[in-house]
Each structure stands twice: as structure tokens, then as C-alpha cells.
């Protein structure tokens, strides 16, 4: 088995011959990692995931999951993947347990194994006491957990999560992250996820691809991406009234120093390691540092750097988003 669990080459999807949703993207996902697709709504994240899970056919290019081509060997792909879609897809009229068993039947998992596993999964996502309640009565977080359980029924080697925490409140979101981490640990799966929450990508993903307008702009681990910005921001104040810019600049890893309102704003790689060096260098020359603060760049800054706008700016109003979804759905159907 290759190290590349998912591989996409020039993967492209054009709807209605004109709407380019995904534009010649290339990426690969390594075994055992959580790989995140980060981008605003409508960037092409869901379209990409739908091509990888064999629901949509690529217009151009190719992709493979565990070495199986998503078009030519679609059925092989379907057997080894788990899918947790963006919407709540469970049947509301059935109970949680019935929904999981239905999924098991679709995968053709033998009944006795399916029953045992369904109970295990319900336990895992803490829905055991609601197993015989209709899904209709579940809260958003419970439904999301049920979707997770359904996606795991075939013990997938690769799990696809499409916006796993969309529309959940902050607490439920944090709980869902916990489940995802636990899943990865317990089953050793490779996870491909999409999100438009920066903090989610930062907290969960081993590697991230930032996608915008159907194109991948940059790929890397969250810390790599942050480092690529040129490092952390260190702000110091000294007791003495003197210009120490040159002393600071001579310290290793320091890239930029600016004097601002009596304090120094320093851009440096590996801020945690560099800050003590700066203090040491200043002390050797007889200066005393009175205040120091260290800010690590967030993905927000990374995003800003690469797309030229904050992710918040690209979030349309709820109504606009809904309209966009409808347009896209019609385009997909037509």
C-alpha cells in the first residue's frame, strides 16, 4: 500500500459547462493523518468531497482513494470509505438504531456483526439511551453524532467529514472535535475533512489545504503555514531610554524590528525560542526588559495572507448562502 491514501490529479468539476466549481486541483493525503480543506462557502470543498466519495463524476482529471480510481473502481472505493455528509441525512421517521442498521444493510454487513457494532457505535457517540427514540426528536449535536456513527458502520479506512460542525454551537462543536480525535486514535483512520472554521482546522488537522474559487492556494501543516508568514510577533519594552533596534536585529531568527510608541515590535521565526535570546542579548549590553508579549500568528492571518481577505468577509449572509446552495444544487442536477 502506498503512503498516499487519497490522491487527486488535476481534479476538475464544471457544472453546466460553465460553472467551474473545482479547478484542476492536485493534492495527496497521507496515511493516518487528518487532512483539512479550508475555505469559504462555495469554494469547492463539498464538490471535491463529492467527487472523492463517488457521488459526483469529475469533469476532468482523476482521483484515487487507497489506490482505487473513484470513477472506474467506484464500488471498491465505496466499500472502504465512511461518509459523514454536511446535511443531516438520517431518516427522521426512524430511530437512531434503525438508521444505523439501515446503513449496515446498505454495506451488506452481516446482521449479527451489524447489531453488535451498532450498539458499540451508539455507545461511542453517547446515544445509547436515545437509540429507540425517533431521530426527529434529536438535537443538532445528537444528529451529528448519529451521522458519525452511521459513517463508521463499515469500519472505514478513510473517513470523509463534510463540515462536521456546521451549525453547531460552540460547546457541541468542541465535543464533536473530541469525538473525531477519539475516532482517529481508536480506529487509526485517515480523515479527510472540510471546514470553513479556522479554529477547527487549527485544532484538528495535521495538514491543511486552503481552497478558494475552486483552486488550492497553499498546502501545509497549520504550524508550517503560520511559520511561512515569517513567524511570531514579539513585543518588548525596556527600562532604558535608548534605541536598541540594531541589537535586536542581530539576534538569530529575527526578521523585522519596528519601534512603536516606546516598545519594539519584532517579527521572528520560532518566537518561543527567540524571545529568551533577545532578552539575553539586551542584558549583555546592559539593558533591562520590563515587559514582553508573544503572539503566534493564527490561521486567520494565514488565510488573510493567501486569499487577500479575512474568512469572515467571505461569509455571505445566511440568505445569500442559501440561495447559493440552491443554485449549485440545480446546476448539479441539470
Amino acid at each position, binding site marked *: 500500500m502506498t503512503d498516499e491514501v487519497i490522491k487527486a490529479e488535476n481534479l476538475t468539476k464544471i457544472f453546466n459547462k460553465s460553472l467551474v466549481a473545482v479547478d484542476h486541483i492536485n493534492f495527496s493525503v497521507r496515511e*493516518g493523518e487528518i487532512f483539512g480543506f479550508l475555505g469559504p462557502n462555495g469554494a469547492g470543498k463539498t464538490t471535491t468531497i463529492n467527487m472523492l466519495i463517488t457521488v*459526483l463524476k469529475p469533469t476532468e482529471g482523476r482521483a484515487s482513494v487507497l489506490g482505487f480510481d473513484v470513477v472506474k473502481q467506484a464500488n471498491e472505493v465505496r*466499500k472502504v470509505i465512511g461518509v459523514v455528509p454536511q*446535511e443531516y441525512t438520517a431518516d427522521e*421517521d426512524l430511530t437512531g438504531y434503525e438508521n444505523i442498521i439501515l446503513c449496515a444493510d446498505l*454495506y*451488506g454487513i452481516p446482521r449479527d456483526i451489524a447489531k453488535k457494532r451498532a450498539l458499540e457505535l451508539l455507545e461511542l457517540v453517547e446515544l445509547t439511551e436515545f437509540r429507540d427514540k425517533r431521530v426527529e426528536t434529536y438535537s443538532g449535536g445528537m444528529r451529528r453524532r448519529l451521522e458519525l456513527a452511521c459513517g463508521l458502520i*463499515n469500519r472505514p479506512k478513510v473517513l470523509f467529514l463534510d463540515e462536521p460542525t456546521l451549525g453547531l454551537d460552540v460547546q457541541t462543536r468542541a465535543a464533536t472535535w473530541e469525538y473525531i480525535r477519539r475516532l482517529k486514535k481508536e480506529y487509526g483512520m485517515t480523515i479527510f475533512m472540510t471546514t470553513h472554521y479556522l479554529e477547527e482546522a487549527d485544532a484538528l488537522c495535521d495538514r491543511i489545504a486552503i481552497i478558494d474559487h475552486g483552486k488550492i492556494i497553499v498546502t501545509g501543516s497549520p504550524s508550517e503555514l503560520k511559520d511561512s508568514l515569517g513567524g511570531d510577533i514579539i513585543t518588548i519594552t525596556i527600562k532604558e531610554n535608548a534605541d536598541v533596534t540594531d541589537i535586536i536585529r542581530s539576534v538569530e531568527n529575527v526578521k523585522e524590528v519596528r519601534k512603536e510608541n516606546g516598545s519594539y515590535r519584532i517579527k521572528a521565526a520560532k518566537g518561543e525560542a527567540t524571545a529568551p535570546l533577545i532578552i539575553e542579548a539586551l542584558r549583555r549590553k546592559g539593558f533591562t526588559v520590563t515587559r514582553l508579549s508573544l503572539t503566534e500568528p493564527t490561521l486567520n492571518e494565514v488565510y488573510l495572507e493567501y486569499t487577500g481577505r479575512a474568512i469572515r468577509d467571505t461569509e455571505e449572509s445566511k440568505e445569500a448562502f442559501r440561495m447559493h446552495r440552491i443554485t449549485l444544487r440545480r446546476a*448539479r*442536477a441539470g
Partner: protein
Amino acid sequence: MSTASQSKATNAANECRPSLARGLWALTYRELKKWLKDPVMLIMFVLQPLIWMGLLGKSMNIGGLFSANNINLPPQIPIPGKDVLSPPGLPVVVLNGTALAQTFAQMGSKIMENTFGVTDYFSFMAVGMVSMIVMTTTMFSGMSIVWDRRLGFLEKVISTPVSRAAIIFAKILNATFRAMFQASVILALAYLLGLQLSSSFTLLNLLGVYAAIFLLGVGLSAVFIAFSIRSTRMERPMQFISLITMPLMFASNTFFPTKLMPDWMQAIANVNPLTYLTDAIRRLTILPLDASALIWDFTYLGLFAAVLTSIGIVLAWRYLTR
């Protein structure tokens, strides 16, 4: 990934043996469960043909037109002698009006029998209502695929290795089962309201009735599923249904025999599958048995189901994955 977890994962993949039968049963079972959990819809569906049957079927008392009471001749009918050709020369002839009305009434029921095959219109149209409920039930349940798409359920099912044919057949089977069940309800109600069974009717004939309903149900639901398979909105299939139900119903033998229709309408009625279902059920319930006519009905229904199901399956393969 460690070797242990890798082998666990490999085993998991081997466990997946998606089969057409298994998937078909799971998906059909799901729909039937949903259906049984919603008895209101069930009643609503039965109500419409019941109203047609109870009000229209009972008010259109065509048999009553020809009753002695309705003909209502005076007891004595004098006729001037010059109007009587033979024997000639009588001043006046008096006819027995009551007897004459009886004769007309007898002719009336002969006319009814020649037209409808039975002497009461209610029995004739009640069977038509069975066809009607088969049609409406299959149409509306064909639309459930639109809901599944909207709710994302369809996409989830597509992402599993279940056979694509199972997805379509589950819809078809579910629609057909519903139609069969609701048709039984209508038949039972019709019997309670005064449907006259023929002397050749046995319980075995009911099997034939179900077979006929099954064939039409399968064919019709395949059409509607094929039509709505790409739809993401309810409006289009809805429009289509309301457009097509009336012509299908009227240009058939549901309310009136086709032989008295103008030629162009007969041409439509003769290809309309509803005609064949209604005819088959009538022959199995209220009319004397005519094997050759029945065989022709079943052949047509069988071909209809086979051709349209094949089209449905082809479209499913083509359009489920876009």
C-alpha cells in the same frame, strides 16, 4: 497505521458484501416503516377515491334512468286506429301502459348490460376507482425520491456500495405495495357500498386482481421515478402529476366504456394502461369470466411494466451519479 489495525481494516473491507436483495429489502423496509408511521396520509389517499365513488358513483344512477318508475307511463295509452297498420280499420287501440313500461325497463337493463357489462353503474365505476388509487398512489410515492435528494439521504445512499438498481427498485416496490394495500381498502369499501360481484367470482380471482395491480403499479411508478430522478424541486413532478391524472382517467374506461367514445379518444384509451387494469379487474370481479380477454389484458400490463421498468433502470444508472 500499525499492522494490527491494518489487518483489522482489511477484514472490515471483506465483511462488506453488498447484495441487491439485501439492499433492496433494507430500502423498501425503510419506506414501508415510514409509511406505517403516518396513518393520516394513508387515510387521505383513500379518501379521494372514496368521495368519487360515494358521491359520483352513487349519484350517476344511470341504471335508474331505465327503471319502470322513471319511464312512468300512464296505465292506459290510447292510439288512433289510423296509426295502426295491422289489423286495419280499428277506431282506437288502447295499450297497457304498465306492461309497456315493464318492457322498456327490461330493454333498459339490456342497454345497461350491453354498455357497461353490468346492470348497475356503481359497480362499473367503483372498479375504476381502484385503478385511480393505483395511479395516484404510485405517482406520489415516486416523488419521494425528490425528498430523499433534498434531504441528502439519496447522496448518502449513493456513497455506499449498495446496488444502484436496489435504490430504484426499492422505490418502485414501495409504491406498488402501497397501491396494492390501498386498492384493497377501496375494493372492500366498494363492496360495503353495494358492489355486485359476478357469479363466477371466487377468492382466487383476488390473486389475479393483485397481480394486475402489481404490474401497473410497477410500470407507473417506474415512469414517475424516472421523471423525478433528476429533480431537486417538488414543483415539477407535482405539475406533471396534476397535468396527467385527469386525461389518464377520462381517456380510459374508468368512468365510461371506450366503445362509445369518439375514434380519437378510443385511440388514446386503447394505449392507456389504466384501461387494461380496469378491464382486468372488472373481468375478475363483476363481469363473467372471459379468459382470452383477460390474457390480452395481462399481456399488455406485463409488457408495460417490463418496458417502463427497464427504462427506469437505465435512467437510474445514467442519472443517479452525475
